[in-house]
């Protein structure tokens, strides 16, 4: 069997897994809150994007808006939907704030409850059925390479994922705000002593993490399909990837995402019935030798 198509598929899948884990990693890394609502924010982001692309509920304005070429509406959705979800994330942070300094279970339960509320809200508004998030025709359809057909969108999604990862890295590494975020993750008392408003910073980090979840949802749901509980499919690999990569580590999440993608992709090519299981076996294998994950100690969020 030709391995190359499966390698390429695995890398593309890995980038997408990395994108799913980014927002999750940020919130866990800085705030030590396991945000179980990450999946619901992922789904809600895709639903909001769908409404931005086809705003039928806006009546005449919606009809004239739909006349705008799809690539422009798609780009708008990619920009605006994460902002909307960022605001939702801010609301969620206000609720989670009460659990700071308490046992981790409080934050866990609160975000789990929030995920149920968000998912049920999606069902009420959009119904239980399958929805469709359209993508521009220019990035849809097949690419023929040799005898094998690839999905053009998958490569576009992976490219978008790389851009997103790059932007997050630039933000964390090259901006004073990113420095504050990293400093908060490392020593929040010191950050507070320097006169930085920790509450506002954490509000912002949660919003940023939620917006990243939404962006991942917009990128992934044209591949996975869009339904109210699609977030469940995202939160499990996200959790696995940040544990595998090392909690709070940007590069850990990226590398773990790629590893998981390659493992699932190659296993899928040779023993497809083991494809889902393979990522858990990888986790067990890595944690057996390195309990803090791949880059748990060398976190980019550490000063």
């Amino acid at each position, binding site marked *: 069997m030709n391995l190359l198509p499966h390698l390429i598929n695995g890398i593309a899948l890995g980038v997408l897994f990395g994108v799913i884990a980014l927002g999750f990693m940020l919130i866990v890394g800085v705030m030590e809150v396991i945000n179980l609502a990450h999946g619901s924010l992922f789904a809600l982001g895709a639903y909001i994007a769908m409404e931005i692309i086809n705003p039928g509920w806006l009546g005449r304005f919606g009809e004239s808006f739909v006349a705008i070429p799809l690539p422009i509406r798609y780009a708008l959705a990619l920009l605006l939907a994460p902002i909307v979800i960022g605001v939702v994330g801010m609301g969620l942070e206000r609720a989670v704030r009460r659990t700071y300094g308490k046992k981790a279970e409080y934050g866990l339960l609160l975000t789990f409850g929030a995920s149920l509320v968000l998912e049920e809200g999606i069902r009420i508004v959009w119904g239980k059925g399958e929805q469709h998030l359209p993508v521009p025709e220019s990035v849809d359809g097949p690419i023929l390479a040799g005898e094998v057909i690839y999905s053009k969108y998958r490569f576009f999604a992976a490219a978008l994922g790389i851009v997103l990862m790059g932007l997050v890295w630039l933000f964390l590494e090259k901006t004073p705000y990113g420095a504050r975020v990293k400093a908060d993750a490392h020593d929040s008392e010191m950050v507070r002593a320097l006169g930085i408003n920790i509450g506002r910073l954490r509000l912002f980090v949660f919003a940023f993490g939620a917006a990243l979840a939404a962006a991942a949802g917009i990128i992934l749901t044209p*591949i996975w399909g869009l339904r109210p509980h699609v977030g469940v499919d995202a939160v499990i690999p996200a959790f696995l990837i940040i544990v595998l990569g090392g909690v709070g580590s940007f590069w850990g999440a990226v590398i773990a995402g790629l590893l998981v993608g390659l493992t699932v992709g190659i296993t899928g090519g040779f023993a497809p019935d083991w494809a889902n299981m393979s990522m858990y076996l990888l986790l067990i294998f890595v944690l057996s030798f390195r309990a803090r994950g791949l880059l748990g100690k060398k976190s980019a969020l550490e000063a």
Partner: protein
Amino acid sequence: MISERRMERRRGNDSNGAGSRANALGLRRGFWRAALALSTVLVLGSACKKGDQAGGDKSDKKPILIGITADASGQYAASGDSDKRGVIMAINEFNARGGLLGRQIKWIHADTESTPATGSRVAERMITQDKVDFLIGAMSSGVANAISQVAQKYGVVYLNTNSSSPSESGENCHRTKFVWDGNGNNFAQAAVKGAIGKFGKKWLLITNDYGWGHDTSNATRKLATENGATIVDELLVPQGTRDFGATLLKAQQKHAEVIAAAVGGDDLKAMRTQVSQMKLGSKYAWINNQQDWPDVYGLPKTDIFGVFGTTWYYGFDLPGVKEFNARYQKENADSKIKTPGNVFYNGYWATRSLLETIEKAKTTNNHAVIKELEQLRIPATVRMQHHDAFMNPKTHQLQQTIYLATANMDSKDPEDLFKVLTNTAPDQVVDKEADAKCKLEPFEATPVYPAAVAAQ
């Protein structure tokens, strides 16, 4: 715990709430107390009259209680909702006629969460605590099998409305269980012979790695090889798979002419999206075992590929279909699905047939109802299908018309998703393996239920 919270109880109209309010006022005002007493007498009198008119069992006026075991969450949530709506419409029709055996029909619903363990727990609770008379509803064969084991233990008649695994009327059949959907073997028989002649003999199987998937692919494999096809490979897809990239790449490397996919639920939705993106739908002849209406409703037609089975289509030009569609739309104005599909149809017909059978048997006693159901025959004109349907007494699976359909690219109506290609009479697609595998428990080994109602 969650499902307990979701437990939905609708016992009667809103008269209880109105009565409570009137009672509260009556405590303050004698006039209202008297009015409440008078209205209670009138309501009771009216109910007795209805019971007499229906010729029911005058000694027992408690409602007939039906437990709806439909998924409201998990991967079959959308279909579970349609299933439930079908059951409720049939119940409402009977209640509008004055009930059944002089008794109103009530229902309760609990979310089976697309999970066998929950299905089992829900069935146990509905039977032992809620004292339901019948259980109706299923999408997943795992859930249906779990519920039916509990139902058989107590002797409760259970209708598996929409699970299409051959094992449900084969090795997992029960005396108390009746299956109302066509199964994988029926659909495969309708599709395989024609596909070999038309598309080619090199077949690849894509199989969801659980009971229904294996049962269905095994049926396809057997039929295909018997008719001269070669199975080039079988790709197993774990339940919960969202990325089909590797599977679809491997499928291409196998150079098959026909791909027979036994993939269901959310897995099928994800696979369909990815096949559509790679435009593989037109490169191979796809045989998708069955396509449930709620899974495709609202999607672009380009996302629906290949040939697939179904048991009914709202666009049939048959007597009664338009009226049925209108009733659906009237009763389900709140539904996002504006046209009834096969899942709704199966839920409706299973329930309607059960209620008609009880009416005929003049009792809710399980043994009597089972014996009547085993003799069930429904003319095609009544069921809005192309051939008469009948219950197979050996397997308890309804034998009905099996349709093959594809995406209707000719119609501009976004609701008109399917183009029905063929209809096959039930005797042409009998699942003979189920006949051989099914061993129904004898009546002596099936508890009488409800124990207080003796068979007539």
